């Protein structure tokens, strides 16, 4: 008995020892190595590369903006007025085909080389010839450098959007000498020949406010203030951009001192309202969630019917979508987001009218229609799940008399269906590639998204003519009016039904300023101060 008792004590003692060891390790507290001069940005990564001419992801844009300077830029949250950066000034020709940029002559790369037009020429041609995700930004554009401090962009077609495209971080200027030395090329065939990506993932070659210290596509990106930066010195010497999922961001932001969280949903943000340590900014974001009804009779005999489309248009309960999306969200009155030139006002927004929707359905001559709705079932953006939205669409249209089968699938599958124009009804979003209404001409017949909705070229000549006119008009007032006219026409008899602009939430530690959301690069870490 005594021996048995000893054994029990021994086992007990072992258990307690192990538990104590675990507890001791657990209770070690946080490290003292973190300094207060580190800005921590929590973001759920879609990171692929730190090579500015290859990145076109949200996370990549934040990094490239910090590492590379562009000819023009935007101030803070504004995206309506491009302002000088590397270019001290620019001139546009009256036909919006030629843009001449005059460069500053006091900007140097880290190796002491002066930034010249040759670097701009190299960077832009590299972007074009790599044929990557951002290459379309300079579609139809040729670049010339007549002297060291002049760059001329010539567009095949009139392109008044170019000054709004130039601030994109993908057009960040790299040190051509250094990048060439590490396998980079700007020549045709760069899609195969360029080998500089791995170098640019290990160190930066730009003139931005920060330099790259460490880069990982899955854990974190570390930036350090660039001692040679030509602009105002950033407040934070170090910036760490971490790959953190939204639920953990919610916890981190309440514990951290100098932190920013970029992926909180409006619902999550609302839980922070009583927090004394966090400030939340929820504004309408630039993403437009929309529904479409396919105009291609080969895809469906029902969805191209104009009366059927009107039944959908007036059957949707737009206010309930806004309510679902939460803080910061608004009904998008047209396809162009509210912060861009040519956006419609809330007065133009379509309102629900069930009686009218039922009358339209009756006029369509289709009784008890059943259609399939495709959407990315595993995709959530701005805190809104497409599955939840799709269920709402289904319930709304059921009230009108339209039966909707939800045929969502994982995004890798549904995206292929959508892009092939095979969905009868589709629930998708469009995020801006650059802050200009020209980016929304893709919704017209024969264009990128128009074709996905089965809207072939020549289907609506008057609308297409308006689109052509808007694309080549240089006067902004006139352009704005033309885009409004296009959207009103789309709201009357187009196959697209704009639903919402979800709220864009930026949560930051109390005392932090300058954490402004900008649709082009999400956040400029060099503008943040504590």
């Amino acid at each position, binding site marked *: 008995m005594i*021996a*048995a*008792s*000893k*054994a*029990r004590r*021994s*086992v007990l003692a072992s*258990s307690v020892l*192990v*538990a104590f060891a*675990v507890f001791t*390790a*657990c209770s*070690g*507290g*946080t*490290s*003292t*190595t*973190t*300094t207060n001069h*580190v800005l*921590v940005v929590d973001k759920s990564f879609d990171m*692929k590369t730190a090579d500015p001419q*290859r990145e*076109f992801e949200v996370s990549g844009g934040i990094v490239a903006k910090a590492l590379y300077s562009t000819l023009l830029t935007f101030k803070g949250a504004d995206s309506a007025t491009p302002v000088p950066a590397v270019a001290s000034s620019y001139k546009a020709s009256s036909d919006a085909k030629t843009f001449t940029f005059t460069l500053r002559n006091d900007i140097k790369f880290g190796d002491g080389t002066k930034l010249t037009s040759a670097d701009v020429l190299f960077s832009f041609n590299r972007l074009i010839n790599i*044929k*990557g995700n*951002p*290459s*379309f930004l300079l579609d139809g554009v040729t670049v010339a450098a007549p002297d060291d401090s002049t760059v001329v962009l010539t567009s095949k077609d009139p392109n008044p959007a170019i000054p709004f495209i130039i601030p994109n971080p993908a057009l960040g200027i790299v040190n051509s000498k250094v990048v060439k030395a590490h396998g980079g090329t700007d020549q045709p065939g760069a*899609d*195969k020949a360029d080998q500089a990506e791995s170098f640019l*993932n290990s160190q930066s070659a730009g003139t931005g406010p920060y330099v790259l210290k*460490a880069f*990982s*596509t*899955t*854990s*974190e990106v*570390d930036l350090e203030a660039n001692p040679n930066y030509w602009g105002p010195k950033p407040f934070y010497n170090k910036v*760490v951009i*971490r*790959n*953190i*999922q939204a*639920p*953990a961001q919610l*916890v*981190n932001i*309440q*514990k951290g001192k100098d932190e920013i969280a970029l992926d909180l949903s409006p619902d999550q943000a609302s839980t922070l309202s009583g927090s004394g340590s966090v400030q939340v900014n929820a504004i309408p974001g630039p993403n437009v969630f929309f529904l479409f009804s396919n105009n291609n009779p080969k895809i469906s005999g029902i969805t191209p019917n104009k009366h059927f489309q009107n039944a959908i248009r007036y059957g949707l309960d737009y206010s309930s979508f806004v309510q679902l999306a939460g803080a910061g969200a608004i009904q998008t009155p047209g396809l162009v987001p509210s912060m861009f030139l040519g956006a419609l006002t809330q007065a133009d927004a379509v309102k629900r009218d069930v009686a009218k929707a039922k009358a339209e359905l009756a006029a369509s001559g289709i009784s008890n229609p059943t259609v399939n709705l495709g959407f990315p079932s595993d995709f959530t953006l701005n805190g809104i799940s497409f599955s939840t939205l799709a269920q709402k669409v289904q319930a709304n249209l059921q009230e009108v008399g339209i039966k909707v089968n939800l045929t969502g699938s994982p995004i*890798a*599958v549904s*995206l*292929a269906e959508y*892009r092939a124009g095979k969905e009868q009804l589709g629930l998708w979003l469009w995020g801006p*590639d650059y802050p200009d209404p020209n980016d929304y001409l*893709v919704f017209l017949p024969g264009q990128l998204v128009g074709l996905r909705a089965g809207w072939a070229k020549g289907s609506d000549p008057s609308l297409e003519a308006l689109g052509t006119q808007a694309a080549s008009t240089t006067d902004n007032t006139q352009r704005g009016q033309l885009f409004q006219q296009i959207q009103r026409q789309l709201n009357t008899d187009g196959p697209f039904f704009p639903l919402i602009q979800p709220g864009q939430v930026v949560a930051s530690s109390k005392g932090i300023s300058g954490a402004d959301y900008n649709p082009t690069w999400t956040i400029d870490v060099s503008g943040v101060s504590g």
Partner: protein
Amino acid sequence: MTSAASAANQQLAAGWRPRLPSRLFLRFLGRRLAALVLLGLGITFVAFVLTELVPGDPAAANLGQRAIGDPEAVRAFREHYGLDKPLPVQYAVYLQHLAAGDLGESEQSHRPVRTDLAEYVPATAELAVTSILIAFALGIALGVLAAVRRNRLTDQVLRVLSLGGISMPTFWLALVALYVFFFQLGWVPGSGRLDPGVLPAPHVTGLYTVDALIAGQIDVLGNALQHLILPACVLAAYNVGLLTRFVRSAVLEVINNDYVMAARAKGLPERTVILRHVLRAALPPIITVGGLAFANVMTGTVLVESIFSWPGIGQYAFHSATTLDLPAIMGVSLFVAVVYIAVNFAVDVLYGVVDPRIRVA
């Protein structure tokens, strides 16, 4: 109990160390390696066929909303990743490269899959090994304790707790643990492998704790351990519950055997009886469960990695699957196959080490 078994147990009790005949062992090793090659081939084949059957398009999943509308960008993407070739040709090229140790280039990270795996596997391995050590230490100790105190209060409490460990969804436990121990109590740091701004020690193994130890960077070691302990504990919870129950049952099976009673009758201390006679005889089934638990932890950490922002193989596998990144999917599949075969192999060898009857057979 048979006399042979009894003799074997006596041999064990006497501290006998078995030695595997080298020829048999090499044949056994050869069979396992052949199985690995065949399994690897089978996995690559199935992954290729399944990826082809999925009605998705890697170009659509990887190119942006504009680039996918540009035939030149789509062509360049397909050509770069060999997707412009027929599937049998793609497969043949893949095998050819695989034979040379080249796992291809990831479509999501634009890096060789081998480089990606070399970065992510150590992160998961560090988490998995720590977790399994915790699970073994607690599971065995608590299982023995429960068996020794069978049907008493301690046993009943431990049975309820172990059932809780098995039943609780890991993602839920991870969120609660993060909230309580990081947010409320502040005992551990939050997400990631190190604090923001703390750089890992120079890369040797990829295990931050080991690398920090090698470099003598004690502050980094401490920081890495603090980040490691909570996700490892969360990941261990299920296996602690499982092992506690398993050890309890295995110990109860042998605790009243004749040789155990004989050991007690000889006047051996109870601690020696339990540790050297009872526990050792109960080890084979525990090793089986432990081996599978380790393999599960190595390959099934995706939720814990996601919640704790741990850049391991689980997150990599998830992103690869959602973007139809075929080379990465193949690389992860092969890794999983290797882990399971290696663990089964280690379990088989350990059987022979702890139980001479298996070696004799």
